[in-house]
């Protein structure tokens, strides 16, 4: 796809530097709430495109590989995922609007679009260790959880903010609690622990983010590894192409586009 940049490249680099300098100056005084807002701002860009390779490691030791294109707009409010590989899933597409409160799936062999209720977010995405809820993104960290800052820790020699996110009483999120390690230098979360829906002491999944690259001045984790500790399975997502803030039409996020 053709990138469309609203600002010259040099502006993006400058704004990225400004962001990093400001971030490091104020890091010490930030509350948990402020840090999670920074994290959300960083991962929820106005729009984005990515081609992702998803490698699912099964309990029997096999690896299944999927490739999909993903578009997002309005800071994660609109999402479209379209599968390219394997052949079995080719053409299947999922449209998520209103921060995944509205979900439609398209099945190319039957040409049928099915609307799913939000409980479907709990289902595993193509049998992976990511649920649709994990993929929905948006403002879930802000809306579904209350954040508390814990004492800072070092992770792999890098200074991290440590946050605890506890599920709000009115939220239907699938996790009772999250623990998150966020790089102080750029607000990229590099480790998230997901705790069981009922038992807030039982660690269910662990998400590790690595290979952080500056793309258009924005630090971006190019690899994500989700380990499911219950099933002893894992799923790795590798971002093959990433484009931040491309110009995306609203028409891309409609049932018509879903069937294309």
């Amino acid at each position, binding site marked *: 796809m053709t990138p469309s940049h609203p600002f010259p490249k040099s502006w993006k680099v400058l704004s990225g530097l400004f962001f990093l300098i400001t971030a490091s100056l104020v890091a010490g005084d930030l509350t948990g709430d402020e840090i999670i807002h920074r994290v959300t701002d960083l991962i929820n860009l106005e729009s984005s495109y990515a081609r992702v390779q998803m490698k*699912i490691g*099964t*309990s*029997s030791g*096999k690896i*299944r*590989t999927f490739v999909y294109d993903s578009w997002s707009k309005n800071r994660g409010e609109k999402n479209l995922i379209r599968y390219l590989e*394997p*052949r*079995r899933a*080719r053409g299947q597409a999922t449209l998520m609007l*209103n921060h995944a*409160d*509205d979900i439609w799936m398209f*099945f190319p*062999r*039957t*040409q*049928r679009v*099915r*609307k*799913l*209720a*939000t*409980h*479907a977010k*709990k*289902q*595993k995405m193509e*049998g992976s260790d990511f649920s649709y809820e994990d993929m929905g993104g948006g403002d879930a960290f802000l809306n579904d959880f209350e954040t508390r800052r814990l004492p800072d820790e070092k992770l792999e020699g890098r200074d991290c903010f440590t946050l605890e996110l506890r599920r709000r009483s009115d939220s*239907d999120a*699938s996790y009772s609690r999250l623990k998150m390690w966020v790089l102080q230098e750029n607000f990229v979360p590099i480790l998230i622990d997901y705790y069981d*829906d*009922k038992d807030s002491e039982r660690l269910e999944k662990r998400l590790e983010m690595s290979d952080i690259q500056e793309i258009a001045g924005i630090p971006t984790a190019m690899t994500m590894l989700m380990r499911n500790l219950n*099933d002893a*399975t894992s799923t790795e997502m590798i971002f093959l192409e990433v484009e931040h803030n491309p110009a995306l039409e609203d*028409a891309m996020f*409609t*049932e*018509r586009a879903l069937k294309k």
Partner: protein
Amino acid sequence: MNPHRLLAALGLLAMTAAPALGQERVELFGYFESQFMGASIGGDFIQLFSNKLRVDLRSELSDNITFAANFDYIDYQGKTDWDILQFLPDSITANVPEQLRGFYRLAFEDRCFLDNAYLKLTLGAFDLTVGRQQISPGTGYAWNPTDLFNTKDLLDPTYEQPGHNALRLDAVLGRGLSLTALYSPGEHWKDSDRMMEMKGRLGHFDITLTAVEKTWRYHDYTRFDAAALNFTERPQRRRLLGGGTAGELLGLGIWAEYGYNWMSGGENFYELLAGADYTFDFQTYVMLEVYRNTQGRPDSIGVTLNDWMRYLAAEQRSITRDQMFLFVRHPLSDLVQGGVSLISSLSDGSLALVPTLTAGAWENVEITAYLNIYLGKEGTAYASDLGSGGMLRARVYF
């Protein structure tokens, strides 16, 4: 298989594919499917094997023109000629005249066909699709009261449906509204099929209004037309007005679909479907649909040979009036899903159980198996004398 039909289909595929093959980006994909079906009937176990090859072509001819087609070829071995009367209750078959008995047969013949072969032209807010295409209206899983183009197999409701020759216009009207107008030509304008569908959203609910006019080719299965070498056709004009919705209430996914049918030569009737589903935290998925078809009988008393034959020929969607479809699915491992469907006629109390297994052991291989166990009394919609059995299917995508 008739070689002329095979050649004609291949020729048509070649003709339709030719423009696409001239382009740089032609996608070629499809699948091979091998299937075994068996049924225990009258102390015998009959078997049917089939092999299906589907080849899809797709090309973006330009920014706003898409070509897509698929060619299907199926061959059958084993018991390819089924005596339908063998599956029906004695009370129904007792009155069939001896000279007609040989005509109640279901023949599985090798065939090739196109489900899709169309050009799609996109101009701004309009899509114009011309040619053979799949038409899939409705929100229901097992039944679709607003779909007069397809009838689903209750044992395998998600299997792909055949294509229809049609001219279709999809228009985006703004504010989440869209309009579909479809014309499927018959021999004459007056016996052609027409459909209009308006879609919109209300809160988190999708709302659809549908109007269809279609020639409905009923048959009288008690009379034989010697000239046509088939049972006597009793075509009627069927006009449907209906709609559907899908959304969420109290955490449950819910949907409904309704169609009222005006028949030019028979009794009017309606079909109504309501469904709900839920996924538990432990990944178990549960779905329930209830369905009413006032064309069906209120109980098993008074069911006729025509009711059975029209049901088996997909001329009507159910024999009895009220039905239920309950489906439960759970991942047995990260590669295997187990499920069970419980299909019941609420009108006559009969029941069928369909345990299902789907496995994706390899990336492009899918294995599906189910058993169909009929538990109803003789004469009921899901009577045990329908012949319990099963199906095993392996599909390889390329």
